[in-house]
């Protein structure tokens, strides 16, 4: 049985004119234990909306509908808010695109890590502190003991993302959702962060959902890939067939637009396939 199973998910927002705008429409997603799933899409594809719905982080105005939304056998749609809160942070966790903005500027890194532990574990203060040090060590932050007292603005973007990973993995969740975790980072730092995520994923056997726009990141990390376009699923396949034999025309167009696939000639563009991607509103 899949760890996370979502069937026929639609998320819509009421627009100013009273119509519904569908951010995602009729999406099925399943994630297995120990799997790395990448959700790929360009801007406007609403690729993170489904996972935000799973985490219950969409704004209250969002209208979420699904036939099934199950995590580890529990029906997320019928859980009380309290039960949802018990799950998130402990069994499923999420990290975001802007590492510095993801951390509260007013609290120390240590406080923010230990807060999760206090919420979800029975550890006492000393044990929490000890665990926080271990976590910072595990995500590769030097001098963890000293760093616990630091504020987010005193750290680099890469370090902040490591801290976020430490917070997210504090209770060894079974599902980690990473929303463009390396987009704001330099390539060398990106590699370190991705390696870290994959290592933790393998060590803890957790499922990892990686939301990204970067085909390179997909190629280096994913087991399975969902391609999303304008709120719809275009393709759901394993990573090898995605790159060797893409089925959907959109995926094919996307891959052919990669500069590395074109040598020095002209690049085929997606507009050859889709309605003008830059159509006027």
């Amino acid at each position, binding site marked *: 049985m899949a760890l996370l199973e979502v069937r026929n998910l639609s998320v819509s927002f009421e627009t100013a004119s009273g119509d519904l705008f569908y951010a995602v429409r009729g999406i099925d997603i399943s994630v*297995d*234990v*120990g799997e790395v799933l990448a959700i790929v899409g*360009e*801007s406007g594809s609403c690729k993170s909306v489904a996972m935000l719905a799973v985490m219950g982080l969409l704004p209250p105005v969002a209208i979420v509908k699904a036939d099934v939304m199950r995590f580890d056998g529990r029906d997320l749609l019928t859980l009380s808010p309290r039960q949802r809160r018990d799950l998130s942070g402990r069994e499923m966790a999420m990290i975001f695109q802007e590492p510095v903005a993801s951390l509260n500027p007013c609290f120390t890194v240590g406080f923010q890590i230990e807060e999760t532990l206090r919420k979800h574990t029975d550890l006492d203060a000393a044990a929490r502190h000890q*665990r926080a040090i271990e976590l910072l060590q595990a995500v590769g932050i030097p001098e963890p003991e000293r760093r616990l007292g630091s504020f987010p603005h005193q750290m680099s973007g890469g370090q902040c993302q490591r801290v976020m990973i430490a917070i997210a993995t504090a209770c*060894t969740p*079974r599902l980690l959702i990473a929303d463009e975790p390396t987009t704001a980072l*330099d*390539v*060398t730092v*990106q*590699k370190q962060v991705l390696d870290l995520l994959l290592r933790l994923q*393998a*060590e*803890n*056997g*957790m499922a990892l959902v990686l939301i990204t*726009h*970067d*085909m*390179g*990141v997909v*190629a*280096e990390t994913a*087991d399975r890939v969902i391609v999303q376009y304008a709120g719809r699923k275009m393709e759901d396949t*394993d*990573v*090898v067939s995605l*790159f*060797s034999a893409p089925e959907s025309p959109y995926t094919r*167009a*996307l891959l052919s*637009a*990669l*500069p*590395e*696939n*074109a*040598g*020095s000639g*002209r*690049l*085929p*563009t*997606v*507009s050859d396939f*889709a309605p003008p*991607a*830059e159509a*006027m*509103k």
Partner: protein
Amino acid sequence: MTADQTTPVLETRGITRDYVSGGMFGGTRTVRALKGIDLKVERGKTLAVVGESGCGKSTLARIIAMIDSPTGGELLIEGQKVEIAKRGISPELRRKVQIVFQNPYGSLNPRQKIGDVLAEPLKLNTNLPDSERRDRAMKMLLKVGLKREHFNRYPHMFSGGQRQRIAIARAIMVQPALLVLDEPVSALDLSVQAQILNLLQDLQDEFGLTYVFISHDLSVVRHVADDVMVMNFGEAVEYRSRDAIFAAPEHPYTRTLFAATPRINVDSIRERVARKAAARRATGHATPEPVST
């Protein structure tokens, strides 16, 4: 000015740039953002400058575009020495180098219609009558792939890719010799990125433009560049032809950079997936239990 074919369009000799921070209390601190950059770009060629954030590539771009002045060293445009500090810049010199920025949302004046965005450089640099300026602006608009009806619209009505087309059109309105492209496709989606790269290539072929292309993305650099300069901490650690540098990167930093860049290669993906499967079998659990602490 004699800008014959043999004079490089752009040449810098030992360009340095210092930033002084602090003051009042705690003393001043000088940071050298550029540590002596030498480069030379021939007409019609593209030099790509690669590096990570803070390596000084944008500082270099601004100096070449004569927005900031260097602390030391020489900047020559078509063989002519640029001395902002001493003599200021003549309009003629200013016209020769134009720049396109990374952020398509910040580079157009929100209160200016597209037609005016394009006509403004002509108004500032030529004595053409109004109608002629509008004519040329319209022609340029069409050339970069936009439509007649876009002429009187405001920037917010355009997508990122369209804005970048407009920014490029504005830059080449005054027929510059050199175009500095500061991460021109980094903010764009893959599909739009391809369109813009194609456009830049077409324009280069048509007008014989010379490009300095600043980027952090090696796959894009590989696609566009003739020569590549890799920068790290304000230094040019490697500066060679594209083919040479991609065939055999010499400097350790270049190698680190190359190694960190994700590769899309079906064989290596297969290998990775197989490795993972093997590792799982080895540890003996196909569906591992969560490690509890």
